């Protein structure tokens, strides 16, 4: 069982299809996460954004500390099985696959 959690900035709509123009990054990451769920049997994907899932930020000490220290610009934070694999940017599908396969070296412990 692998857990992939994405901690994101406060936002109204995480799908990216909202507003005059679609948000490229959000559209890409939403599609990537959907596809990952199909590709990996025992993968659980969770997205938490500060506006709607503030509890997850408050309860996860490491994330709490990171945001408090560096502010929301440190978001999004991608976590695979308790390991922070990316900060400040969304990973592409290829990068996410690599991170899940454990072949990518974590950026920070």
């Amino acid at each position, binding site marked *: 069982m692998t857990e992939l959690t994405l901690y994101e900035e406060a936002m109204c709509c995480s799908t990216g299809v909202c507003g005059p123009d679609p948000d490229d990054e959000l559209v890409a990451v939403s599609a990537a996460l959907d596809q990952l769920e199909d590709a990996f049997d025992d993968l659980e*994907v969770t997205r938490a954004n500060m*506006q709607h899932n503030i509890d997850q930020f*408050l309860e996860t000490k490491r994330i709490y500390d990171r945001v408090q220290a560096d502010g929301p610009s440190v978001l999004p934070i991608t976590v695979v099985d308790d390991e922070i694999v990316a900060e400040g940017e969304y990973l592409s599908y290829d990068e996410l696959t690599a991170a899940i396969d454990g072949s990518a070296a974590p950026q920070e412990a």
Partner: protein
Amino acid sequence: MARTQRSAESAATSAREIVEPSGDDTEFVFFSGKGGVGKSTVSCATATWLADNDYETLLVTTDPAPNLSDIFGQAIGHEVTAIDGVENLSAIEIDPDTAAEEYRQETIEPMRELLGDEEIETVEEQLNSPCVEEIAAFDNFVDFMDSPEYDAVVFDTAPTGHTIRLMELPSDWNAELEKGGSTCIGPAASMEDRKREYERAIDTLQDDERTSFAFVGKPEGSSIDEIERSASDLGELGIESQLLILNGYLPESVCDDPFFEGKRADEQAVIERAREEFDADATATYPLQPGEIAGLDLLADVGGVLYDGAEATVDVGTATDVDGDGTEHVDSDGAVDFESMTDADAVVDQLTPGEETQYLFFTGKGGVGKSTVASTAATKLAEAGHETLVVTTDPAAHLEDIFGEPVGHEPTPVGQENLDAARIDQEKALAEYREQVLDHVTEMYEDKADTQIDVDAAIANVEEELESPCAEEMAALEKFVSYFDEDGYDVVVFDTAPTGHTLRLLELPSDWKGFMDLGSLTKGAAPAKGDQYDAVIETMKDPERSTFAFVMYPEYTPMMEAYRAAADLEDQVGIETSLVVANYLLPEEYGDNAFFANRRAQQAQYLEEIRDRFDAPLMLAPLRRDEPIGLDELSAFGEEITGLADVAEADAPEVTPS
């Protein structure tokens, strides 16, 4: 007569069965209808009638400018308050703005621990979205839909089809919720918590044993058409409209000249048509009164007529109190000099285009005659030699009927030199918006280095997202903004959509621009889009280039609704109202009796109040025997509206030759 009386009685019996609790469960009665049709009056009368019949009753209003206090003659407010003099009756006034603010604060509170003031402010601005307001509004209903201590709960407002559709959580959003993502309807987590409550509320709404949906309208063709549209929206969601109340028909005894006899005949024909065509279980009517309906006696009269088949009491003998406030325009004979209350030159100033294209917005709630006034203004401007485009953003637009010419998505001539008309076709606008978004996404993937992503599946995802009600709104907005780029017009006249929807449409450019500036919603938003929105907002805010005219008729609710809408527009977008159109003024030459003298004095009183509230010149428009149809009638009607007849004279010859 005997037959009429019998049918009145049987109508009352069915009306009674609809609003009375049918078993042990609490009965919920919702009154739907536009402002100014007497919805509050009917709600108060229904609640009072139920209480008088020994049902423990709660009356809930979510009107932002409630007048329950005036009707019952006592302060009510945000707490459940017992009504003096009526056993078993309590009432509460919920301020939807306060409710939305509370909702926002509840969402923000836990973030304060983690975020600085500046960041909190950013989130606060994000939560200032129309969707959040819609959720908060629905919460107001949900909170009272579990009230076992009452036999009946009467709501003087009903959720719209749009809101219910939002709250039904379309299946693809459910999937999104499971993943913990968020949708534009908001907080996935808190939605999840309340999901069961929402589902139960919607179940109750759809259960016609427990819930009654009633529409209140005026006996006018357009009013019935609008009710039919709203009812069919609700019907698609499995909610039946059971009761139709047509309020404010002219009493026979006071119509003693051809003008009002004719109007009365039209109203009766509309009532007849509604009885035959509208798919309600019962239709009930109540006449116009010489004054406003307030106090328990009049409420009892209304309840008796609607639910017991009693005859209405219309007491026209009451003389107008000419010493009252704001009646200095009423002379000793009771005649009202409306003209003395306005300044035609100031109106002409606002209407006449300058060097650049002038934008003229006629806004206001449905049923105030906005489309007719906008079309009339456009006709007069075109006659005066200005190249004019009139656009309606109202999905229920009837510009075709007004001009008697087809009006499409793109500007087309309507038979008057210098005049084109257009309407936003919601379906076409949505198709255009979808195409634009899908093109964008397709292009985005062309540039992406991701090797393994299934582009077709990604695009299918986006397509599903485009089914949301938010997408419809964005689509309409995109089209609205595009009319600012139409070349070759001296004047563009907008007949904006009714209800809060209009203003949201107008406010959205600045809302979305706000999001883009904040950078967190649409990080990758194309700067070109931001600039286009900026330009539109700047144009709308510039009083030299844009004129905002609020259309209303001089009565309490329409005035308050317009006043609130104008205040919102100023607070949120920074647009000032520069004209007020007071429509349906009673003509002097007809209605020579105490009844109409009272009505005229009441109109004069509200005109005074409108003048005090809005710091803008008044355009006065008279009540007509018939709505003007076609260019000739529009032109003639224009002669009777303050300022419009003078547009030609004020016109400088330097404008584009036709």
